[in-house]
């Protein structure tokens, strides 16, 4: 038989590759030599504006955790993959990480589509998965997963809280326009906002529903239209480079003078846009975190982290970094509780995941809880921008920390339906605002 070149080459390659493709032995319940964490995030494309800070936060925190003994005495090692190529690539990678790299826990993903695809696979692979950043509320509303939990909130409170804030700060508005990115988050967040707004304050006229293409680089036409229409409020759940561009172009054309802006994700843009973003804009942070968090800013934990992060990456931390921190702190707390419940022995995957449900744990800026269905519950920080001398970018003033009971739909309900049951009482029940302290 003629040995074809292809066969010979392939055999050679396979021999070389064998160590990298054969599965790693990982015996459950025996304390591993290291805890392997798979992390999926965006390392390319426009979403890398969040993906890379998330990865950087992971690197920093894992170093810090390992310096103090790791989790349960076991050092942590991360394996980072880029989710940019798409779902088919990510699903192959999850399998490879689980079976070849012996990853113990997976941290996925920024894209909601990725999360929705990974969670069912995690069930099949029995791979503990923490959803660390994706916003879709549909994951735990439409299915239940034993092997997936979420250490952050979801779109529902992230949008309801800024709406309640607006209704409190500017209750007399009568016209509104929305400018959202044209993809699932943009559509979902608008559906939640509109449902809630029509329930609490019916009769608001929506003068324009603009959904510029995802990755748009120019909003001139939209801004012209908004200037002509003069809505009282402009709502935009955009983020990243697009939000930066929208803010700058709107400022250049004085749109901020005509309308009140509500930007639920603008905390991540504050440092970059600087004082171009004028005072009086309602800003959200996608959760209970900000590097100058009103109740946590004086804690050593937050101060040290911010300092270390800034020193190493030359930027202030933004919400993706806090989401990553929540995932890691949650994981640590989960393992520690499970180990204690297991009499000091390393827990099995099922023990770990069952422990994470109902877990309450401390993180950089406060405490949060994971509900029985796996969904995370955290307060929502909303404030209004203010210019101060101590920072070259706006800070948040008159901050309200909306508790989850007020802004999150209960287990077993659908967010877009629950918001229709909101009433003006929800606006009044908000806690008192906290002023900016120098």
């Amino acid at each position, binding site marked *: *038989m*003629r040995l*074809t*070149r*292809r*066969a010979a080459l*392939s055999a050679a390659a*396979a021999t070389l590759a*064998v160590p*990298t*493709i*054969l*599965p790693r032995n990982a015996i459950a319940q025996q304390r591993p030599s290291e805890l392997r964490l798979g992390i999926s995030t965006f*390392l*390319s494309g426009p979403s890398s504006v969040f993906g890379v800070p998330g990865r950087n936060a992971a690197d920093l925190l894992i170093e810090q955790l390992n310096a103090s003994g790791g989790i349960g005495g076991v050092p942590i090692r991360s*394996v*980072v*993959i*880029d989710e940019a*190529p*798409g*779902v*088919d*690539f990510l*699903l*192959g*990678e999850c*399998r*490879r990480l*689980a*079976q*070849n790299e012996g990853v113990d826990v997976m941290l996925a993903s920024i*894209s*909601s*589509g990725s999360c*929705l*695809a990974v969670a*069912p*696979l995690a069930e*099949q*692979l029995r791979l503990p998965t923490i959803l660390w950043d994706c916003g*879709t509320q*549909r994951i735990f509303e439409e299915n239940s997963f034993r092997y997936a939990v979420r250490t952050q909130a979801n779109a529902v409170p992230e949008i309801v809280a800024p709406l309640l804030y607006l209704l409190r700060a500017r209750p007399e508005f009568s016209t509104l326009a929305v400018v959202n990115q*044209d*993809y*699932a*988050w943009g*559509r979902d967040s608008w559906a939640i906002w509109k449902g809630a707004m029509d329930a609490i304050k019916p009769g608001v006229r929506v003068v324009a529903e603009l*959904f510029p293409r*995802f990755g748009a680089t120019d909003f001139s036409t939209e801004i012209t239209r908004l200037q002509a229409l003069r809505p009282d409020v402009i709502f935009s759940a955009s983020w990243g480079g697009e939000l930066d561009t929208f803010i700058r172009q709107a400022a250049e054309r004085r749109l901020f003078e005509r309308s009140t802006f509500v930007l639920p994700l603008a905390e991540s843009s504050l440092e970059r846009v600087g004082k171009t973003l004028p005072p009086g804009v309602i800003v959200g942070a996608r959760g209970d975190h900000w590097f100058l968090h009103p109740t946590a800013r004086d804690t050593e934990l937050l101060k040290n982290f911010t300092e270390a992060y800034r020193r190493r990456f030359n930027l202030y931390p933004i919400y993706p970094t806090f989401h990553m921190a929540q995932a890691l702190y949650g994981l640590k707390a989960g393992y520690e509780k499970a180990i204690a419940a297991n009499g000091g022995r390393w827990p099995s995957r099922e023990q770990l995941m069952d422990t994470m449900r109902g877990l309450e744990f401390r993180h950089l800026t406060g405490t949060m809880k994971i509900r029985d269905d796996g969904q995370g519950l955290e307060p929502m920080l909303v404030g209004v921008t203010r210019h101060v001398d101590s920072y070259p970018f706006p800070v948040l003033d008159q901050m309200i920390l909306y508790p989850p009971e007020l802004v999150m739909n209960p287990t077993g309900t659908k967010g877009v339906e629950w918001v229709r049951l909101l009433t003006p009482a929800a606006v009044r029940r908000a806690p008192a605002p906290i002023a900016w302290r120098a």
Partner: protein
Amino acid sequence: MEPRLALPAAAGVALVVGLAAAAPWLKFVFTIALAKGLAVLGILLLLRAGQVSFGHALYVAVGAYTVAFARPGIGELLVLLPLSVASATAVGFLVGLFVARYRDIFFGMLNLAFSMVFYSLLEKLYTYTHGTDGIRVDRPSFAGILLDRVPYEWVMLALVLALSLGLGALARVFLASPLGQALPAIKTRETRLEFAGISARRVLLIAYVASAALAGLAGGIIAVTTLHVTPLLAYWTHSGELVFIAILGGGGSVLGPFLGAIVFELVRVYASAAFPDAWQMILGAVLLGIILFASRGLWGLYEDLVSRRGARP
């Protein structure tokens, strides 16, 4: 199949199965790769006519979304896949009627246009398609049997291997037939073909519809393997990927697409694992290397070596 191809094909199958047995995660990767190889087989047909389509991701997406929409009503894989082929063929025929009149850049760009319009539709018709969140596909039954994950993945791999061999052989027969032989004539001397009484437009249309069908099948397989479809399947960079694989594998033989697809997926996995921040650059460099130094692709490299050995006395 001709003996020249039978041996490499058999070796390839043995290698794929062997590697997949040693490393279970490779089943998934190989299934996706071979499915893409089927779509690239279609691109190959068009490349023979000198036409590059920058929009075949359209048919992959049509096939995948057909499965996604049909799944709640139909739970059988052996029905879902033919459905994906049927819908992609239908769309391919309608679009082909229009684009087969054009050549070169106009052909390429019109295909791009249709695929991007479809992509936008998938994103915007949010209530039906869930937009960028995508649609989940529950695992279908195979010949009436509901399988667990591991046996299912084996069955899918076996199925796609069988389809690759069978459709590859079919493609070979087609390319050797008078109709298939007319394709290169479109590339070199289309007017002469017309003078000979053969409608170039009809020849191209047939090849186009065949390529759409193959891409639709690929989409269906991707849908039932990943169990989640997103609009990105239709994006133009994925069409470009298919052309990339066609050249990587080499246009000289029907085994080229499959060879190219597997190498592409493996390089991407390993480049991305070793250099998560620079994998795109590595892939690009690999392609550049192939084009500059081995322009007949991996298959061309293999042929060179074999013919050199064969020529030795």
